[in-house]
């Protein structure tokens, strides 16, 4: 708010450019701090974008980015008219929607619960253990998933058999794929994602709790009426950003645990791009598919931001 008022004051007696320069001079340390981040985005996100032109060409390696024959929207058309278009979009959207629906609340609930734990060593131990999977590489995680779910001697099926249930071959049934994916994702990311909420919680003024307790509020009421509303902004911001990445599913984990048996629910746009682009060397087609994905992604982000602005007054821009 303060920067807003000072800039309106400045507006009266100076042009836009000199105002920026003045601000820059005054706050150059801040600009220096953010410089690496800006450089990162320019170098790794914006500059490589020129390569997208190959989505509109029949790209030939060695001929460069501008000398391939231009083919307009041919590759987009081929993707949209392809046999698997509907399945790919459906799988991408559904898998991410489930991930958001189930995966998003867990870190919040976990942070709220952890905040209530008063035994410090126990709290620390739980926190550390819950971060742990985040630091294990995806390949190892997927190896663990495979061995946990093995129908012969995986721990899940051993437990199922010990209580008299049939052993299930989870990874070769298409109907279990999303469940497996979402649950393991929660397991890996819950602890790590809760850090930001814990940080937000620790910033809440303790006097609010004291006042509430004097008024006779229970612990649950304190959580519901003080903690949750206080971290609302953080929650909504993260929600918008999660919606923004709704379509940008990373392919690694899926590639490691899917098989043709589970393509029906597991094959998403990014795995398809991987197979057609890197394995079959159809660079142009893969770029077109990837671009299609990113555009939808961007539209979702704009939509989520607009909705949030309208209903909660929190927004990215």
């Amino acid at each position, binding site marked *: 708010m303060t920067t807003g008022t000072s800039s309106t004051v400045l507006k009266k007696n100076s042009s836009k450019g000199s105002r920026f320069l003045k601000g820059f001079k005054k706050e150059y340390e801040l600009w220096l701090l953010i410089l690496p981040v800006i450089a990162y985005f320019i170098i790794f996100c914006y500059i490589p974008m020129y390569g997208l032109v190959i989505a509109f060409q*029949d790209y*030939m*390696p*060695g*001929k460069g980015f501008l000398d391939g024959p231009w083919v307009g929207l041919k590759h987009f058309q*081929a993707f949209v008219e*392809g*046999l*698997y278009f509907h399945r790919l979009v459906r799988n991408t959207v559904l898998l991410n929607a489930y991930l958001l629906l189930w995966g998003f609340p867990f870190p919040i609930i976990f942070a709220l619960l952890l905040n209530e734990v008063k035994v410090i060593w126990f709290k620390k131990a739980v926190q550390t253990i819950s971060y742990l999977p985040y630091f294990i590489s995806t390949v190892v995680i997927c190896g663990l998933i*495979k061995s946990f779910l*093995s*129908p*012969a001697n995986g721990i899940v099926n051993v437990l199922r058999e010990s209580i008299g249930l049939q052993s299930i*071959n989870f*990874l*070769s049934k*298409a109907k279990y794929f999303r469940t497996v994916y979402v649950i393991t994702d929660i397991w890996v990311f819950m602890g790590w994602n809760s850090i930001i909420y814990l940080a937000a919680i620790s910033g809440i003024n303790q006097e609010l709790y004291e006042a509430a307790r004097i008024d006779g509020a229970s612990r649950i009421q304190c959580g519901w009426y003080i903690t949750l509303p206080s971290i609302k902004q953080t929650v909504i911001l993260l929600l918008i950003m999660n919606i923004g990445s709704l379509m940008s599913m990373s392919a690694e984990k899926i590639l490691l*645990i899917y*098989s*043709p*048996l589970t*393509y*029906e629910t597991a*094959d998403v746009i990014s795995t398809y791009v991987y*197979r*057609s682009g*890197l*394995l*079959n*060397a*159809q*660079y142009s*087609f893969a770029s077109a598919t990837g671009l299609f994905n990113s555009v939808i992604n961007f539209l979702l982000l704009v939509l989520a931001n607009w909705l949030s602005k309208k209903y909660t007054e929190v927004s990215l821009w």
Partner: protein
Amino acid sequence: MLCFFVLLALIGSFSFAFAGEREDLLADHITLKLMTWENYYAGASFADNLEVFQAFAENQNVTLEWELASSSRYSEVLQTRLAAAIDLPDIINCAPVQPAAYGLSGVIIPLEGLINEVNAPNYTAFLVDHPIMSLLQTSPDGHQYSFSGYVGKGEMLGGGYGLVLRGDWLERLGLAVPTTTDELYDVLKAFKEQDANGNGDPDDEIPFSDGYSKLNVLAISFGCGYRAGNFDVDDEGNLYFCCSSEQYREFLRYVNKLYSEQLIDPEFATTDDDQVEAKEAQNIIGGRFSLWIDEVPFSEQMIQSADPDGYYAMLNPLTGPDGTQGVIYSSGMLDNAMCISKDCKYPERAMSFLDYSIFNDYATICNNCGSEHTCWEYTDDGSIAFTDYVMNNPDGLSPMEAIRSTGGYHTMTFVLYAEGRKLMNSVNDRIVGYIDSMAPYVVDRLEYSPSTDQEAARISELNRDISVLVDEMRLLFMTGEADLDADWDTYIETLNSLGLPEYTALYQGKYDRVNK
């Protein structure tokens, strides 16, 4: 043998006539950079200047540098490098890609202008005996972009049929080694129902365990041949797509029967070699594929850690239900393709290096048998004998591992030296017996000419969805998720709607160019 001496004499006369020019060519010491995937023997990286390549480098007066990636990631790394086409190594192993496409856009250079008696004396001599190689390696656009190795007609590259079953389990249950697919079914059934591993628990055996894609070997016994990649050819010389044939359907029905009666590992869709090996060590699997017969002793080490008497019986190709005899394909021209990149500063020297390292007779022995002195010595009659380093390795390496530790049996292309392979395997009597018993079943694979640029582009476009459908439906049919009676026609219709007729016609064209 006579032929060998004639060849020697030929080479001799060539080298004599062009000796002066050749000396000039090799006069300057230069550096050549090679790109391929890493040695299969993890203990020795090519980057360590292994003895075999040291010998090649000395002969060619070069220093070798390497750009390496692991075998599983090589295809990705290579395609990324070729797509960027910047600062490429001089010599590239293009095995995973179609060199012609990259030749057309100029990433790799045509070789035919470089092939002459000065740059490539060994290859020129090789062509005298194998004229077909020139045709096979020439793209329809008239250029040759790559060098491929060669396996003599009717020779196996040690691979063979690959189906192995626990010999000690067969003995325990009083069963004979199966020779037909029906007998195989009976054996697996017995493994399942009885206490085949003899630990007192009749329920812990998995009769057969391996990745699903390897099961295609069995399809040959059902008359679905794969003699030409995904295609086979009928009596009139017309190609047909294997995975949509009636024979293939019968094969799927057979596998589905095995799967539904739990005679193959329920994890066969996702399993990898590590998991299979882990189960071998638990002494619970009754059979697997071991596509390199030389590696059977390694698998046996795994099972012997659990059961000292365990061993694998190796199967000959099985006879199918309608009497079709299974066969083994010899390799002919290998898919491996060595190319020279546009960034190579000394194309003549790169050509000379390829020529020597692939087609020279001494190099062939090194490629197959490892380095002279460490791995083998010449005997008085001009053949070779392996040293103890290979046959009785002090560190316990298998013969193949020992050879690979010196740079032999590397990942680039070479010509098979069948005698060396036999000699190496002579350390194990059972493998010798097996290879002898397989010999009558070996037939030649069918050859295609390389794709034109348009063909390659169209094939890869069509293959995009066809391969997904085939791969997916194969597993769904095998596991019974899709019904072989109710869903088969839809499967065929979908294949046709994805352009299967055009796909087949394209391959027919490639096939006709070589065979008509």
